[in-house]
């Protein structure tokens, strides 16, 4: 629709009438063209669910989060959003514990994430009370994915605009990493990224996720930080990291610990570059 046609109050009487009828016709055409595409529970004629795709676009607006499944550790790293001067930093969190042994990082609409996290936390406790066993990582992922899928098929609702990386250890001691998206699908991953520049980070992980890279816990942590440094502009200051080790609770890295890791990584980079230049010489 031409932008000037929206301003229908100016011009001669004929022009105003013509513009009003144009606007009304355009609105009718838009509705017909979209074939109820804005109605979440109905598909478009070519099979697209536009609302789900729009929700996936909302995910790309969130900052990057990366998840890595090591041998004895799972790591979640996120790009911290810069906080306003007067804002309490503690209230801006991308990594949240769902239970003692499960935590998740998300990217997308903050409010939608809060609702999903609350529902997941209640489900974790409800499961523990009912079955007397903590949830498995796969169970809570499926719960979140089912919740998201319901919202893609209900009238008057819209899909949750978040993707989540859910990590943890099951009773069998095996580390797990799952990813969910707004459509309600979920998959297990060895390493994955969501949010802005997720593609760049995923490509880095595809090249660098090797058995050596996750040989021990420290290497897995370094891999997560290196992946984030590909896209985070201000270095370690803007990175938040959480790990879960087998039979241990969630541990959030402090800013100092992250800085130490970043310094180590930069040293290793320099040494690798020196070796390269020696070889060429």
């Amino acid at each position, binding site marked *: 629709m031409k*932008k000037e046609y929206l301003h229908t109050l100016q*011009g001669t009487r004929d022009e105003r009438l013509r513009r009003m009828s144009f606007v009304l016709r355009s609105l009718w055409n838009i509705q017909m063209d979209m074939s109820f595409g804005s109605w979440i529970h109905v598909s478009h004629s070519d099979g697209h669910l536009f609302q789900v795709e729009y929700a996936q*676009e909302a995910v790309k607006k969130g900052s990057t989060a990366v998840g890595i499944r090591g041998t004895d550790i799972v790591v979640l790293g996120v790009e911290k959003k810069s906080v306003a001067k007067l804002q309490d930093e503690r209230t801006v969190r991308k990594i949240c514990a769902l239970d003692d042994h499960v935590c998740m990082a998300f990217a997308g609409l*903050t409010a939608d994430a809060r609702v999903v996290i609350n529902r997941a936390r209640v489900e974790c406790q409800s499961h523990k009370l009912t079955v007397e066993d903590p949830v498995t990582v796969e169970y809570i992922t499926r719960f979140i994915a089912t919740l998201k899928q319901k919202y893609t098929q209900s009238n008057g609702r819209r899909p949750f605009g978040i993707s989540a990386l859910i990590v943890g250890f099951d009773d069998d001691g095996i580390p797990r990493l799952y990813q969910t998206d707004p459509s309600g699908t979920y998959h297990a991953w060895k390493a994955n990224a969501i949010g*802005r520049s997720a*593609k760049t980070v995923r490509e880095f992980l595809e090249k660098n996720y090797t058995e050596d890279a996750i040989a021990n816990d420290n290497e897995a942590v370094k891999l997560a930080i290196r992946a984030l440094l590909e896209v985070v*502009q201000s270095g370690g200051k803007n990175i938040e990291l959480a790990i879960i080790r087998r039979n241990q609770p969630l541990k959030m890295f402090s800013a100092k610990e992250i800085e130490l890791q970043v310094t180590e990584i930069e040293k290793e980079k320099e040494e690798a570059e020196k070796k390269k230049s020696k070889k060429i010489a």
Partner: protein
Amino acid sequence: MAATFFGEVVKAPCRAGTEEEEEDEEERRETPEDREARRQLARKREVRLFRRQTKTSLEVALLEKYPCSKFIIAIGNNAVAFLSSFVMNSGVWEEVGCAKLWNEWCRTTDTTHLSPAEAFCVFYHLKSNPSVFLCQCTCYVAEDQQYQWLEKVFGSCPRKNMQVTILTCRHVTDYKTSESTSSLHSPFLKALKTQNFKEPPCCSLLEQPNIAHDLPAAVLSYCQVWGIPAVLYLCYTDVMKLDLVTVEAFKPILSSRSWKGLVKNIPQSTEILKRLMTTNEIQSNIYT
């Protein structure tokens, strides 16, 4: 008479011409009130160029008043932030004019300390080489105002011995491709040039059926019609607000031959860009 799809009954046009048409013409004739409304609207939508320091309007077109060999136009807040950080810090630029306009989407601001988040259109030239011009435009120029803008800037008979570079951004969902948009590596740069632009562009050319829009398209078409060598660098991004990653996507242009001497201190420019981002960051908590 004929019926339309929407149920309206309209008069089918008749080439023969009948007495009834004369009656209709009388009805359609403009009243004085209509004419006054049209005049007021035209005055409101006029594009004016003036010097902010002296508050006097420019009587002649900008590039007719000053000779120009190189003209760089940044349209949109990311392109403007790129020029502010990488080009404007490596020399002394003097403001030579600014455009003031109004439309339903924006009104140019009058403040002196401009940030890429505000709506403005300002022209500068390099003090050490006054034939190098730069335009930073963050306001939306409506379709009916684009030709006025071109006339006031380039004039009715522009010189052909200048080179024009236009930088702008577009949302990646506007990019038409047979691949899935989720596989696109955004932000990415595409170029569109006029016939007389002989230099190789710094990125791949924009493929069909993609087109340029708005003011960048108007400037490029104008240059094509007048035979002026011009290139449009279009950055497709998924974040239209001021964003560091999108601004840095323009960096390949710095290696272009025509920009030699305009860009000096790149590490310092990166620092300036980071400061600009922090100052202008809209504290939106919608997305995390």
